[in-house]
């Protein structure tokens, strides 16, 4: 490499473009976690009593639990008392026009121009900054057709009955260690309700941003699609570059009633840590959707390029007859990143179908694991699953692992699993280069082709974004 040190430096900082900190006044709780913290948190959010009690019940359950250690990851112990469980920009805005210009600037830098997105792209954006939701666009237009799209805090206050009915109905408070923690201290997130027979007129989208230091982000998202409703939702995530590890423990619950369809896409680009493995986000997320009604459908699509550690399994519980669950995933790890991700497909209803497509890309010294469970219950007559896991290795020091689990209790089930592991071949590289394409561009090109099947599932504009993200994340992966 003939680059000058300054150029090299510039190239390095370009690698994570979202790593800036916004200087903004915040109102935050001191670090530490006990019942008082939860009372304080709940009071700040002006929550009804049932919500406070719900949180406390989760907290008490959490105290009895231990942090799990079965994932294929190396993890420094987390000091839960050193984290601040609430941080919010001061001066809460009432409408988009009142949003702090600095905040808007932040989202602009991230490529989420709220104003523009709302008006031009026909995408409604809910932006969560640290712990609170700062602005939700296009709400009026949505309200006309009866769609509710707001922050979780607002939903708790304004749509209490709906929240109470569905919150925790897919991921119970005590589901797992991090879900219990989230249930106790979740600060904000998005709430989406699509009433019976409504096809949501636009893509809904949320941007999550961790800004303050020593803060955890515990967002909670709940999406309900009533009978025949259709919705597509996308979340994007970024965080500043910091030397310490920050915790992100979110819970996402999806409920699809009869013939409803929910498509949930994620482009996750939390700060991954530096090239020596210092800093980065711990991304421990519980995502689960329930196809509660017959003929319903839930599709998860995720592009995971960020975080020091990613540990998550967006899952589908296929309760309704003929319901369909899909999981499409691209997980890229570089440097010292670790990912243990995959899905669970639980077939309960008759003639339920699930499809899993997982593409893992490992570079540097990273570890990338696919872990997936296909479970067919006794009554799931005629259940079908098809799983395809492909991994690609770049360089010699990374690892790729596949852990498929199957529990089949019905003899009529058809479950298929295909897996491949490959390297970017020297022939492919030379072929591209002999046509004039540089080494780095050749790698992105080949990786992009490898991920095509998943990118196809993303909404158009986000497919472009995801592709760019892969390119940036792979910088310096060769040579």
């Amino acid at each position, binding site marked *: 490499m003939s680059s000058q040190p300054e150029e090299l430096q510039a190239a390095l900082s370009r690698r994570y473009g979202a790593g800036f900190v916004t200087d903004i006044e915040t109102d935050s709780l001191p670090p530490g976690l006990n019942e008082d913290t939860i009372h304080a948190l709940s009071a700040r959010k002006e929550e009804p009593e049932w919500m406070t009690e719900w949180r406390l019940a989760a907290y008490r359950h959490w105290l009895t639990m231990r942090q799990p250690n079965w994932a294929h990851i190396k993890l420094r112990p987390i000091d839960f008392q050193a984290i601040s469980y609430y941080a919010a920009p001061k001066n809460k805005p009432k409408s988009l026009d009142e949003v702090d210009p600095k905040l808007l600037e932040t989202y602009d830098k991230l490529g989420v121009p709220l104003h523009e997105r709302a008006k031009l792209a026909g995408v409604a954006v809910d932006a969560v900054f640290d712990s609170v939701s700062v602005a939700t666009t296009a709400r009026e237009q949505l309200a006309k057709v009866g769609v509710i799209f707001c922050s979780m805090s607002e939903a708790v206050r304004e749509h209490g009955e709906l929240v109470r009915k569905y919150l925790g109905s897919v991921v119970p408070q005590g589901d797992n260690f991090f879900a219990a923690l989230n249930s106790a201290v979740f600060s904000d997130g998005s709430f989406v309700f699509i009433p019976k027979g409504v096809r949501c007129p636009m893509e809904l989208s949320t941007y999550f941003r961790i800004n303050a230091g020593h803060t955890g982000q515990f967002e909670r998202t709940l999406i309900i699609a009533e009978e025949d409703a259709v919705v597509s939702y996308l979340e994007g995530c970024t965080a500043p570059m910091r030397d310490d590890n920050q915790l992100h423990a979110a819970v996402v619950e999806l409920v699809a009633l009869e013939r409803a369809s929910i498509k949930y896409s994620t482009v996750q680009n939390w700060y991954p840590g530096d090239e020596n493995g210092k800093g980065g986000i711990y991304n421990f997320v519980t995502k689960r959707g329930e196809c509660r009604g017959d003929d319903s459908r839930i599709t998860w699509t995720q592009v995971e390029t960020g975080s020091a550690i990613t540990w998550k399994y967006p899952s589908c519980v296929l309760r309704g007859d003929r319901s369909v669950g899909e999981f499409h995933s691209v997980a890229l790890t570089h440097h010292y990143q670790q990912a243990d991700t995959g899905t669970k497909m639980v077939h309960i209803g008759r003639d339920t179908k699930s499809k899993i497509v997982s593409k893992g890309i490992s570079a540097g010294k990273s570890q990338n694991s696919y872990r997936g469970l296909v479970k067919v219950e006794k009554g799931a007559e005629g259940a079908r699953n098809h799983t395809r896991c492909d991994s690609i290795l770049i360089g010699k020091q990374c690892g790729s692992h596949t852990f498929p689990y199957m529990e089949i209790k019905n003899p009529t089930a058809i479950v298929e699993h295909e897996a491949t592991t490959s390297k970017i071949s020297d022939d492919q590289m030379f*072929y591209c280069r*002999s046509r*004039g394409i540089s*080494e780095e561009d050749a790698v992105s*090109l080949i990786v992009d*082709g490898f991920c095509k099947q998943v990118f196809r599932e993303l909404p158009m504009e986000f497919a472009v974004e995801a592709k760019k993200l892969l390119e940036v994340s792979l910088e310096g992966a060769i040579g």
Partner: protein
Amino acid sequence: MLKIENLHARIGAKEILKGLSLEVKPGEVHAIMGPNGAGKSTLGNVLAGRPGYEVTQGSVTFDGKNLLELEPEARAAAGVFLAFQYPVEIPGVNNTYFLRAALNAQHKVRGEQELDSMQFLKLVREKVKAMGMTPELLNRAVNEGFSGGEKKRNEVLQMALLEPRLAILDETDSGLDIDALKQVAAGVNALRAPQRAFLVITHYQRLLDYIVPDFVHVLADGRIVESGDAQLARELEAHGYAWVRERESAEASA
């Protein structure tokens, strides 16, 4: 334009080229023939810069520049093109996208205007038509699921698009039936131009009935042992490569 002097190259410990010299001027078509294992494909790969080949002696200059010190992509931008004997599949990468990425990468290095997708599409469609290819190939992934003939035609399409100054065809005729061979040859002939040179590597004389060379060289054991015009290729076809070897040893003992 291309000057190869006393070129020695090896893969691992095995020396394959053992003092090859050759000069090619603009507008010329040189055929390189020879038996299996003579080093024909090695020559093409060394010129294009395939990793794994080590040049131990000799020099290669292209337009006065030392070609051997350039990266493969820089050689491409300088105007060297290798049509692969076994074109490589790149799953999921759209053929049109790949072609545009290649052309624009070269344009960028040369400081020429890059083409946007509309301009490019127009250009590539013209080339496809001229090549007598089905446009449908443009929508498929690079070489994925292509028949042998389609792959070779795709190589010639790339050549037509990239407009190299030196085109090396590495056994482009292998695995082609007579119709495909004629099409490929027609594609190549259409590209013959006063400023462009060709190095046509082939095992059989058959291809040279359609792409008539200015010079024919016989490569044996890593060196050129005989050079002549198109007539030499026909004699080889009649007598076989053993004939060259016999003549060579006769000369040596004389």
